[in-house]
């Protein structure tokens, strides 16, 4: 009898071992492993066309807390001085020639290519998504995420998370109807110093842009604190002074 109970318990644990995994905690851990709460970083965004031609952008980003992100384009010359700001669901773009910030939406793209604004000005995943379900798939967990509100760019995400590092390896972005919009591939895990070990390359492709892909390469991620007033429309034209 005791043997039967033990066997049943073992069977239950083997059948659904991920019930032991707290999805929300795992998602928080993924967020913290991808970046500190407040940091500055440099990245290069590359749009690659089917024949291999490329267009590159160099982008400086600062983030504070869970929902304040701002960015400054450093190159090429045609984009230099453009800044972007995100406060929760609110996004703005400042173009030096236009001389004032204008609101943009998360589904637009300030750089063209496959990345849209919500990819470039991404917040912590836990800010925008709830974990609906966690599955175990070999060396990875599969997190099924559902957007908390309708203002989030993708209604659902499927996130594959490496068990050993609590870092994502792949994320599929889906519409409410379950249509695949794009896939994000996390590659080349690198030590950025200060305890930050994360993928240095984020590659994306989309069935909507067959043959095209966009790549984001992180060169530097450094913990840094900022005042809240950095993340305001007034400061957007002055972002260069932060570097």
């Amino acid at each position: 009898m005791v043997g039967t109970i033990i066997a049943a318990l073992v069977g239950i644990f083997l059948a659904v071992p991920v019930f032991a995994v707290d999805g929300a905690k795992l998602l928080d851990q993924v967020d913290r492993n991808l970046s500190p709460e407040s940091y500055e970083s440099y990245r290069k965004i590359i749009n690659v066309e089917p024949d291999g031609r490329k267009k590159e952008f160099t982008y400086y980003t600062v983030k504070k807390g869970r929902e304040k992100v701002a960015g400054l384009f450093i190159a090429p010359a045609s984009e230099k001085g453009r800044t972007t700001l995100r406060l929760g669901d609110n996004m703005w773009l400042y173009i030096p020639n236009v001389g004032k910030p204008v609101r943009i939406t998360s589904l637009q793209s300030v750089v063209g290519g496959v990345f849209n604004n919500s990819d470039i000005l991404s917040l912590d995943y836990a800010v925008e998504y709830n974990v609906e379900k966690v599955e175990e798939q070999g060396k990875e967990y599969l997190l099924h995420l559902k957007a908390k509100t309708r203002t989030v760019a993708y209604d659902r995400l499927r996130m594959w998370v490496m068990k050993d590092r609590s870092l994502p390896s792949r994320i599929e972005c889906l519409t409410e109807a379950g249509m695949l919009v794009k896939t994000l591939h996390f590659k080349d895990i690198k030590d950025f110093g200060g305890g930050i070990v994360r993928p240095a390359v984020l590659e994306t492709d989309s069935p909507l842009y067959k043959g095209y892909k966009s790549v984001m390469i992180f060169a530097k991620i450094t913990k840094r604190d900022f005042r809240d007033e950095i993340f305001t429309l007034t400061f957007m034209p002055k972002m260069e002074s932060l570097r």
Partner: protein
Amino acid sequence: MGTTVLRGCMIAALCVCRSVTDILSVVTKVFLYSGLGRNDKPGRVVEESDGRFDIVTVCLFFMVLCHVPILASPSFAEEYTFDVSEVEKKPYHIGGYIEFYPILFGLDKNSAMYKLNFYDRNMAGTTEQYNGNLQVDASLEKGISRAYMKTFTSYTDSWQTQTTKTHIFEGYLSVKPSSSFIVDAGKKTMNWGKGYAWNPAAFLDRPKDPNDPELSREGFIVGSIDYTRSFTGGALKTFSFTPVLVPVYSGVNDDLGEVDHVNLASKFYFLFQDTDIDVMFLTGGSRTTRYGMDFSRNITTNLEVHGEFSLINGYEQTYTDTAGTVSKRSYTAKNYLVGLRYLTKSDTTYIVEYYRNGTGYSTTEMRDFYSFTDRAYERYITTGSTDLLARALNLNQQGAYGRINPAVNYLYIRVMQKDPFDILYYTPAVTLIANIDDKSFSLTPEITYTGITNLELRLRTGIIAGTRGSEYGEKQNDYRIDFRARYYF
């Protein structure tokens, strides 16, 4: 004329293609979508080649020049690399753009504006204008201070003039003791308001051209402070206060209004409940006191709405009757604008704005002005006297009739399609600016290509239409074709 436009579009598209496959693809697609493939009179496609397309030839020549290094560009197969030394910051910056910008105007010889501007000339059906522009912006940063300057040099070669002019658009010193307190002094643009095509609450800015609303404009000499506070946890997330002092003296901002006044303007900004809200005013004597407000908000992930309102106390309007009797009246003018920006799933962007210009003229008043201009022209033809024409010209140039949009009710619609036919960096667009009251309009199709780093090519045409006596029907041109090759450095 449609085939002319199409031909221009094809030339532009062809010239920026960088492979035989691209060229074939674009030719096929333009051909099929244009309906030319079904044209059973192929001769019509070329019948307008009457020698007026020198400008197109120049565009072609320039674009082919641009094309040459691209043909030789290598295939990119290397691994992605990013060296941090690429982004090292320097204390100074020099950048800007240089552009080649020829324009072909198709003249409407029966229009009031043609008669006013060309009364003593016998022009051909078209006239060309070649422009070369250089915009340079430079900055120098040291500690909490930053000096900034933007200059604009333009070369124009037309039937009327061959000139080179340089303007200092901006030049100011900025001191930033903290991220929440910034002091600026010098010539700068304020760019108030949320409208895309018009900004009735931009009290300290020169008028925007709705045909090219993103162009830089010259600023005014001001002293300003930006004070900003952020808040967490409440409905109010950000508050900013921007007081501005604007001196108006002879030689200093004297085109703003009455001289010998120091004017005060202020803007209060609130990010409240995820909505941008600005409240502003201008007072001080150079212009009558005016108040304004604007808002902007994202409703969904692909829809933004905005609005703007201003009230001008004691606005003085000069107007004429058909005989050229000039009168003045003073009233409180109310201007407002509502608009939206909507992005569809297929990456089509719609910008729609309705603008009520409370300082504008009614359809009847506009018609009276055009009738007076016609009378002045008839008088010139019959008697050789230019006195009435001079009065009409003065009303047009110095008065409000010559403003970019002098009437009351306008509609602006711009539709842009990103990456059509799955080809990145091509953005065709069409813009409609309509005078709602007299049903005249300008329609501007265009195509922009940005696939080459730091180079932007734009080909567009403007079709200007309306009945006699209507605003766009009386414009000087029936159509225009322009090409802009802009290189950023």
